[in-house]
């Protein structure tokens, strides 16, 4: 520690940030102000401090003028603190002898009056100078990283991320809530704009996951709790009982035929309830793993303890059934976590005027996907509830999206999937199709071309929002027959009534109902609309505020399959980068206890959420484990004798900052 005042030589650098700062704050006046502050050996201003010449300036001055403290008045420390710490280190100065005064985000950009901006910048700068005088050199500390990643969610995002990591030779644990991986993509029939069959491109990847020796797949499982932090997470996984031993089942599906229920009578959630299943069931034919699951709510053996067990008989000597299977919790240690928990489709029954849930022939787009899918409840035939083929189909865009009452955002994929559905309806039936849209948003590769193609195929487009879906007069409210869509055609400038016999609602993609609980478990935030928040919207789109937790797919924002896959690979690369480093730097701002001052009162121990503090009963003092401390400083604030201290946030550092800040004019 530097003890005498003469030895302090602080260098101050004021960044213009082009005109970002210089346009709002008089940087020359600010530099002049800095020059007269105590211990300031030199003050400069420069156009872009973060650019190489700016950093070089700092390095040269440290050597040439013997500077031993650096203050940079620039953008938020969240952006360039590491840059200037490294520059100082390159010049032989301890990296923690640097302080940033945030005069861009917290002054230049938020203050209208130039004089007031200068005053506030001066205060922030004075605070930084007084604070840095109290800084001490610190050692960087590192811990080992567990060379394994967890991927949460087995949709296309999770599958892609898991495969990329596994192909790179890393161990991956893939957790999926449903009995099969595949997610929403497995429900689709075709994918826009290429009309690739979803199953044809997805199922090989699903099988690859199952066969990959580096992937441990935990289906029908959920994350129970996450402890630890980057490099060393301990994740508890709740594994629901399938009542069938996954290792013994060969996927012959004979148990389903053998079940005492001769007819399927329970709604299959994978088919959006349009199809029926038995108590022992599999969501779809290509499910991975191809292991059925027993529904404990309806299975007679489980509910009544008595059944002829046709399933067990059919299973025969493979003997895979385990009716005594219990839910269990397994714990895994991983270095990085990729959250890929996806989206849910908006439930349109909350919009009364579209009649969903009231008129049987009003469908959601996801239901129609299942009807069109050859593996779906109708074997790929598009039919109405009464089994007849629709002759006139209306597609309503932006259901729940771009609507102040529901979701303000655009769900990005609905225009394109609505065009795809229009094409598929025309392909499978002779029906007239009416697309009622606000705008067609087709900004992706091959999207506009697909829009043109669908227009040329004879699909009708009406620009306007559908106001109402009602039964044709005289047909009763159940409207087994016709429906009327009332739409304000903004190109014709008049209200039109269009008779249809099927309405497809292009529903929004929204955050999952349990997104809030999930994000809390992973220590991440949500943006305003409820999707998980990335660390930076442009420059860190897969990172989160919780280091080591990464995002992929529609849990971060509504997106299509190509973007999801790209983001999944990006998240996998970030995870790889992290776990391959082998070690990770600990937060420098840990707390420690000054033994001489500690009275052993144990106030701090109960306050620590990480159990990082223990009482040394022999010496009657508290001891903080540096590897467990995350550096919040709550114990420091609570210590009655001032024995608990925090690196980089010591009492005298904050107090000096406060003194500098109170330099009001």
């Amino acid at each position, binding site marked *: 520690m530097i003890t005498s005042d003469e030895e302090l030589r602080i260098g101050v650098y004021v960044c213009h940030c082009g005109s970002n700062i210089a346009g709002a704050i008089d940087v020359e006046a600010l530099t002049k102000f800095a020059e007269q502050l105590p211990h300031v050996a030199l003050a400069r201003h420069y156009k872009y401090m973060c650019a190489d010449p700016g950093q070089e300036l700092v390095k040269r001055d440290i050597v040439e003028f013997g500077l031993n403290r650096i203050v940079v008045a620039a953008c938020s420390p969240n952006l360039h603190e590491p840059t200037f710490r490294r520059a100082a280190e390159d010049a032989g100065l301890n990296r923690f002898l640097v302080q940033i005064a945030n005069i861009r*985000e*917290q002054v230049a950009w938020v203050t209208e009056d130039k004089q007031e901006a200068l005053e506030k910048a001066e205060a922030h700068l004075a605070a930084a100078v007084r604070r840095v005088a109290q800084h001490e050199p610190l050692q960087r500390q590192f811990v080992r990283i567990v060379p394994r990643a967890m991927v949460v969610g087995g949709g296309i995002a999770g599958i892609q991320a898991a495969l990329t990591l596994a192909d790179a030779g890393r161990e991956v644990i893939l957790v999926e809530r449903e009995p099969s991986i595949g997610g929403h993509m497995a429900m689709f029939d075709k994918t826009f704009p290429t009309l690739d069959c979803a199953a044809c491109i997805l199922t090989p990847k699903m099988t690859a996951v199952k066969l990959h020796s580096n992937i441990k797949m935990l289906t029908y499982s959920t994350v129970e709790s996450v402890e630890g932090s980057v490099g060393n997470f301990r994740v508890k996984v709740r594994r629901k009982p399938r009542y069938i031993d996954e290792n013994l089942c060969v996927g012959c599906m004979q148990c389903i035929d053998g079940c005492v229920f001769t007819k399927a009578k329970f709604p299959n959630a994978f088919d959006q309830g349009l199809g029926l299943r038995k108590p022992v069931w599999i969501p779809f034919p290509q499910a991975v793993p191809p292991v059925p699951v027993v529904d404990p709510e309806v299975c007679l053996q489980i509910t009544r303890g008595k059944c002829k067990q046709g399933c067990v008989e059919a299973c025969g000597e493979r003997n895979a059934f385990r009716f005594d299977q219990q839910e269990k919790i397994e714990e895994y240690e991983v270095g990085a976590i990729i959250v890929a928990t996806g989206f849910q489709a908006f439930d349109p029954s909350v919009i009364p005027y579209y009649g969903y849930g009231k008129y049987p022939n009003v469908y959601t787009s996801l239901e129609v996907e299942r009807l069109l899918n050859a593996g779906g409840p109708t074997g790929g035939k598009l039919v109405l509830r009464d089994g007849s083929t629709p002759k006139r189909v209306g597609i309503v865009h932006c259901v729940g999206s771009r609507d102040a009452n529901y979701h303000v955002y655009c769900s990005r994929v609905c225009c394109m999937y609505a065009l795809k559905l229009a094409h598929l309806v025309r392909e499978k039936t002779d029906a007239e199709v009416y697309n009622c849209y606000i705008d067609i948003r087709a900004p992706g590769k091959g999207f506009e071309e697909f829009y043109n193609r669908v227009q040329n195929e004879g699909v009708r487009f009406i620009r306007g929002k559908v106001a109402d879906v009602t039964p044709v007069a005289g047909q009763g409210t159940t409207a087994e027959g016709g429906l009327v869509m009332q739409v304000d055609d903004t190109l014709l400038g008049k209200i039109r009534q269009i008779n249809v016999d099927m309405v497809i609602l292009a529903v929004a993609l929204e955050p999952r109902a349990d997104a809030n609980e999930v994000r809390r478990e992973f220590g991440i*935030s949500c943006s305003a609309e409820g999707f998980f928040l990335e660390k930076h919207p442009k420059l860190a789109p897969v990172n989160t*505020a919780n280091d080591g937790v990464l995002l992929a797919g529609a849990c971060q924002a509504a997106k299509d399959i190509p973007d999801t896959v790209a983001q999944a690979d990006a998240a996998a690369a970030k995870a790889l980068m992290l776990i391959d480093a082998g070690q990770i730097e600990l937060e420098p701002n840990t707390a420690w206890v000054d033994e001489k001052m500690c009275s052993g009162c144990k106030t701090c121990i109960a306050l620590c959420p990480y159990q990082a503090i223990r009482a040394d009963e022999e010496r009657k003092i508290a001891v903080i484990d540096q590897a467990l401390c995350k550096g*919040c400083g709550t114990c420091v604030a609570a210590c009655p004798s001032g024995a608990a201290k925090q690196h980089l946030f010591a*009492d005298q550092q904050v107090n000096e900052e406060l003194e500098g800040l109170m330099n009001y004019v």
Partner: protein
Amino acid sequence: MSDETFKPKIVAFLCNWCSYTASDLAGTARIKYSPRVRIIRVMCSGRVDPSFVLKAFALGADGVLVAGCHPGDCHYIEQNYKTMRRDVMLRYFLEQMGIEPGRLRLVWASAAEGQYLAESINTFVADVRTLGPLNWSDVLHDGVRREEAFEEIAAEHAEAMEVQP
């Protein structure tokens, strides 16, 4: 009470993960707010030592704002609950000292709530303006300068604070 020429001095302690990021976001979005509020970054609102708040008032602040992550969202699991308890304690304490508890404000702002944080800051500035300048001559004995008084109190307790090796 409200005086148009009165420019309040306000210190804001913002936690690194939520509210400081929110203030960065307010900046990026160019949302203007009162320049009378000056910001100190702490890792967690739980680090805000009650003595920091008292020192801010002693140095002449007319208001102190403490902001953290929303309850349940703390980056350090639950430390903002400790902040909440301390806030209650501090208000009680301030009142005994003759300082209006309204001069201390606790705000929860997530990393996505730049707009909300800016609005909260402006609301607080307006409220402090209504309260007027913190009048130390009413708070402390007549004729004693506030810093001297602070030193005096510290000196009185010096013996008790001395460390026995």
